[in-house]
């Protein structure tokens, strides 16, 4: 704990992320107003004039929409990153175990996936299965796979050169068992750090997809669509764009700080 307090980056990141999760979870049981309830009489009210953060062009409460948006954004991003992390890590450790031509094929495959931006793959996917949360999760998740595959391959290869692994191999332990018992636990720290950092990226990408209309369809509030809808009201109601913009920025900042802090904390070289 003392160690944590001595690391302001980690602490701030942790607090912001915790607040984000708290707001997102709270939105499941309570919001100041129903987030999809239109009240056109009270449209485009300034913050504190009506509700905490004002109302949008349909008179919906911005604060409530942001809260629900936090849940939608987080849940989509977490699922996407978990998808990417599990598939990517599995691929990475299997390749580290087998090496040879498989490594070449998988890594070049990763390069190809990496070269296609998630926005583009979401658009293509959306054309086939229609836009929505599922499309967003798949598109972002697929984009995350190479990140984790590369990371886990590199880290796993290092573990394979350790003495205790060599010992286990010489004792005739099956490679699959070594991967499970020795490799995975030893690379888990790096994977967790990467998950945190990728979560920030996933939130940003999800917002981008929603902004382009490829995210969850209305009336579900999403930060990206709130931002897109606010565009033409920028002169009249700047808070409409400012609030979701700040929410996205804050969420990404918090997760990135948490990720950086965790990396410093968990880096074995720093443990002296």
């Amino acid at each position, binding site marked *: 704990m003392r160690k944590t307090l001595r690391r302001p980056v980690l602490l701030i990141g942790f607090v912001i992320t915790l607040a984000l999760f708290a707001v997102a979870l709270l939105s499941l049981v309570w919001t100041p107003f129903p987030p999809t309830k*239109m009240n*056109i009489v009270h449209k485009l009210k300034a913050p504190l004039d009506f509700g905490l953060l004002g109302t949008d062009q*349909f008179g919906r409460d911005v604060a409530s929409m942001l809260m629900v948006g936090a849940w939608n954004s987080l849940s989509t991003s977490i699922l996407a990153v978990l998808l990417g992390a599990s598939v990517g890590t599995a691929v990475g450790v299997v390749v580290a175990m087998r090496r040879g031509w498989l490594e070449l094929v998988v890594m070049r495959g990763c390069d190809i996936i990496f070269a296609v931006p998630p926005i583009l793959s979401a658009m293509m996917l959306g054309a086939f299965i229609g836009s929505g949360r599922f499309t967003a999760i798949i598109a972002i998740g697929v984009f995350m796979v190479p990140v984790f595959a590369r990371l886990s391959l590199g880290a796993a290869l290092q573990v394979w050169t350790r003495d205790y692994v060599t010992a286990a191999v010489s004792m005739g332990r099956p490679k699959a068992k070594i991967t499970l018992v020795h490799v995975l636990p030893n690379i888990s720290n790096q994977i967790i750090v990467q998950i945190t950092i990728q979560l920030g990226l996933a939130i940003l990408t999800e917002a981008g997809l929603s902004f382009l209309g490829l995210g969850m369809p209305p009336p579900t509030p999403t930060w990206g669509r709130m931002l897109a809808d606010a565009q033409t009201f920028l002169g*009249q109601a700047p808070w409409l764009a400012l609030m979701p913009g700040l929410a996205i920025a804050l969420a990404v900042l918090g997760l990135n700080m948490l990720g950086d802090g965790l990396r410093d904390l968990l880096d074995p070289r720093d443990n002296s």
Partner: protein
Amino acid sequence: MGRMTLLGSATILKSAAFGLAISAGLLLGQTGAEAAAKTAITVGMAIEPAGLDPTVAAPVAIGQVTWQNIFEGLTTIDKDGKIKPQLAESWQISPDGLTYTFKLRQGVKFHNGVAFDSSVAKFSIDRARGADSVNPQKRYFASIDTVETPDASTLVLKLKQPAGSLLYWLGWPSSSIVEPKSAADNKTTPIGTGPFKFVSWSKGSKVDLAKNADYWNKAVSLKLATAAFRFISDPQAQAAALKAGDVDAFPEFGAPELIKSFEGDKRLTTVIGNTELKVVAGMNNTRKPFSDKKVRQALMMAVDRATVVEGAWSGFGTPIGSHYTPNDRGYKDLTGVYPYDAAKAKALLAEAGFPNGFTFTIKAPQMAYAQRTSQVLQAMFAEIGVTMNIETTEFPAKWVADVLKAADYDMTIVAHAEPMDIDIYSRDPYYFNYKNPAFNDVLKKVEMTSDAAEQEKLYGEAQTILAGDVPSLFLFVMPKLGVWDGKVKGLWENEPIPSNVLTDVHWEE
């Protein structure tokens, strides 16, 4: 000259700069002196047409560049929506309404020098109604049996059955008179008889026109030497271009919520007129549950039109109760037939067998009005227990394929731009899949008579049938939000037909 060579290059540059400054000053002085006679205008449009021939494709943007500027018709429609003679000086209609004899104007030349006569008129009409014609309003020529040209200045149309609206239809952009040799190229280099000649088209940016010095109609005095149509789709960019003076006029400004931002600008004026743009949420009348009239009526009663207008279009716009606008002749206000009443709507829905509502999908184009209206409707339907999913459908390509051509949809929403197009509900097939012989009968009667009063009465009947049957949810007429430099005069304030007629446009001192 000898002295010049002795001067250092720096001096040359300096004197060159001096000279430039002087000439610039002169130029400025000139513009100052000629401020009274500014002769160029840049008109902004949101949508760039894909081609410039209004006789081969439907998008109204084509006519908004070319109609009355480049192309003219036998008749025309003026700013009050009245039929006026144009390339036909006058006409006679036989008592049985089956023979139209047009006396054509003499001395009219196309921009390429070819003279206009009855053979050209016959060519244009035959091209529009021919078997392989792709004219967007081909049905308007369906009543024509034969086209005869007794002499160069006379055109006779013999009809199979009376067509009371024929003169009106002949004024449309799709009925423009085109010259036989150049007709095939009109998509890219339009050639007509109008007051402006086509100069160039920078795709993605603008279309340039120049005054036609040989314009036949000496009654009008053209004040503009050049005109340009610039295409800017984003409303923020439209506003910026207007404020910066890059665009002198935006006759159909894209975002009502930005209209307020012009209030402080003394140079710009805002003119709110009316259009023919009827925003209607069409339903697939043969698909369950929309095949049940009660369901459609219940949905109509769930809609508070005034709130729709407020939410979707910042309160600009007029609620309508049928597929007809207040500027159309014989208009009846039918918003009271199924007025907003959520409780009654719920009861009617229960009567139709849906006490717990139902779920369906609206295919909504990406345009702001469609998206916003859909969201407001979604909230209103939720009040009566009906769940509407919104599926954004790219307009025009995907919408035309899915909705207009395949009629594969539950509900959609679109603004119908064509004036007096109530007859689309009698078309078979058309995307509503609405079939009512009584309605078709009324519209047939409209064409059987050329008595205006009788026609208006019949149009009233047609409106009433639609208001009761609710084949579409009739929502509102979009306003024409015009924003332009206060010194620009002569632009149409209202839009009885989608257009940007520049004939009378001029700069005021």
